[in-house]
């Protein structure tokens, strides 16, 4: 099989993994080849709008497991291929040299057993690091069930090492991925957490959950993420809208991936990590799912209207972050500047505050931006959703999201 065809097969098999970040590492170019950029660099954007920063491939798409949602499951009749370490090194080095990519994302189907698969990954990456002196970014997938010595070796070679939890609860994992065990994934995460330092997985670990393949509510998904951020110290949790690649009686019969739901989960995820929100603020047992029509932060603000309006020239940093239309950067700018001069709405605009969202929730110098007699929940909600142009959203898609037809 030609190298070109192999690349086609093995990148096609790897594309459903959402992770693509290349940030968090400060590997230097010590007389070798390449370096990493702390903020990460996106090199291109694919036709679905996702960034391409890493050469995302599988070592092999042959797999002994039979996970229901996976295009590479054992029972699928597809073309299988395997790269040799030299081939991967050749493609990576040549792509990197031409500045197509920021580094390598290497995952693999499981062949023979987890340890054997891990040894192949290690062999490949050792070749890149030691023979070709490649100092670019490498993100490798740890195979659940592999031994600690293997994890140690792989972790010392890579910038990011991660294991995918795939489904938010053990029950759905048992149902859809019978060979995968949650505690094995957590074993890897905990091992990485305790051993992480400058030379072992410097950029930290991430994981991925598939959204919409099982019956969990947003509340369960977010609680899972929150616990992983707190206990396993993850850098990122990726949410991947379920794309129906396989037909199976256990899988939902949808045709369009639940993209809007994925978007809302990402927004909420940011609120957890940068805006000091907690899951219990955003969702509860009565409302276990996010409102598709309005973003989580605005919908939180609408439910807590009694706390608003907030006075931007005096309220605390934490309170600023709770205002829709004010982000981390603009909040920091406000805090820095307001000691030195009296803020006006014009200044806020210049600092990057999105006034068309924030105007309902703030006063500046005890002045309202709009007539405050309009400020009721219904008025704000309608205006926010008109501004989001969500009124025009494909109605079918909304329907697809709220109803789950199991075959």
């Amino acid at each position, binding site marked *: 099989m030609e190298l070109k065809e192999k690349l086609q097969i093995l990148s096609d098999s790897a594309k459903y993994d959402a992770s693509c970040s290349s940030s968090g590492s400060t590997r230097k170019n010590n007389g070798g080849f390449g370096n990493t950029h702390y903020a990460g*660099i996106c090199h*291109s*954007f694919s*036709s679905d*709008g996702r960034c391409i920063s890493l050469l995302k491939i599988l070592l092999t798409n042959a797999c002994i497991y039979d996970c229901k949602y996976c295009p590479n499951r054992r029972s699928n009749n597809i073309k299988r291929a395997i790269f040799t370490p030299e081939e991967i090194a050749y493609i990576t080095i040549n792509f990197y*040299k031409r500045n197509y990519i920021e580094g390598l994302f290497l995952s693999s189907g499981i062949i023979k057993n987890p340890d054997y698969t891990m040894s192949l990954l290690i062999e490949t990456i050792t070749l890149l690091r030691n023979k070709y002196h490649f100092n670019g970014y490498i993100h490798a997938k740890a195979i659940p069930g592999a031994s600690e010595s293997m994890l140690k070796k792989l972790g010392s070679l890579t910038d990011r090492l991660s294991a995918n939890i795939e489904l938010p609860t053990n029950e759905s994992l048992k149902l859809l991925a019978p060979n995968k065990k949650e505690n094995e994934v957590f074993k890897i995460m905990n091992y990485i957490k305790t051993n992480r330092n400058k030379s072992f997985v410097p950029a930290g670990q991430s994981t991925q959950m598939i959204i919409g393949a099982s019956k969990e509510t947003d509340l369960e998904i977010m609680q899972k993420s929150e616990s992983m951020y707190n206990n396993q110290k993850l850098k990122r949790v990726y949410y991947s809208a379920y794309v129906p690649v396989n037909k199976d009686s256990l899988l939902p019969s949808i045709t369009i991936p639940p993209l809007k739901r994925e978007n809302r989960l990402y927004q909420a995820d940011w609120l957890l990590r940068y805006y000091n929100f907690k899951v219990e603020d955003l969702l509860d047992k009565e409302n276990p799912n996010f409102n598709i029509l309005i973003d989580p932060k605005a919908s939180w603000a609408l439910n807590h209207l009694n706390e608003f309006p907030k006075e931007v020239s005096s309220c605390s940093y934490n309170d600023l972050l709770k205002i829709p239309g004010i982000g981390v950067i603009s909040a920091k700018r406000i805090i820095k500047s307001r000691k030195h*001069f009296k803020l006006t709405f014009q200044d806020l605009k210049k600092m990057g505050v999105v006034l068309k969202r924030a105007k309902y929730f703030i006063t500046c110098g005890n002045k309202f931006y709009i007539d405050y007699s309009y400020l009721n929940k219904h008025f704000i909600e309608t205006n926010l959703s008109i501004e989001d142009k969500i009124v025009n959203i494909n109605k079918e898609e909304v329907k697809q999201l709220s109803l789950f037809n199991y075959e």
Partner: protein
Amino acid sequence: MNNIYIYNDSFISLLNLIKCLFKNKIRPYNIKNTFYNKNMFDNIIKLNIESDEEIIKEFINIFNTYNFKLIYNVFNSNEENKEIIIYYYLLNYFKYKDKLGMMRNLKCVSETLRISEKIGRECHKFKGFTRFKELKNKVLYAEINPDNNILYLLSIHFKKRLSNEYWCIKDINRNIISIYNKEDFEIISGNNIEIFKNNLSSDEQNISDMWKDFYKIVGIKERKNERCRMNFMPKKYWKVLTEMEEENEKDSIWKRVTRENRRGN
């Protein structure tokens, strides 16, 4: 009459002019380069000032490195009134000193920060969007088409990254080339050098084909989102991107067809 002061296009001559203006306490109406088209109320003034490279050290001493980098970024932008923004930014530094960065209610400060951020953002985009081709003599060659002059900042990045390769990057909008010889880079005018850019190395075609394949495959067709892609990767940059060659061709055919249709009608 509006007093317009003219400098001779280089950063150093601008700094020299500003220094001279500060010294003599002159408030210019505007500062422009030699390409400026005079209008009827303008009073053009050219001062005869020696260009002195020592001025860079002097400015860094007075205004510190952070501010110096800021105004250098502003100078490299394509903003219309960048010179006068730099003048007022530096002038205000004497009043506010290190608090200047927080005085965002001053127009010169908010503009300086905005423009500098804009340059940084475009430079960061091109850290990703620069596409090298390997020529027969193993030199990596890339063409870029940024709105602002980011070649210097970009070269610093690639000097660290590809330190053991020979490379050159050409800014086709400004016709300047940065050339790196495994030790340091130099930026020269494109008129002084000829590059045989069609003389490619033997596996260049093969590699770029693989990249185009990879690019096509990685997009998930169920999630197709043209608008999202366009937001992150505006169409103006497409013509320097290897993986967009096919789309560019489609585009140009489409344009030609519509043009011919219009003519037919």
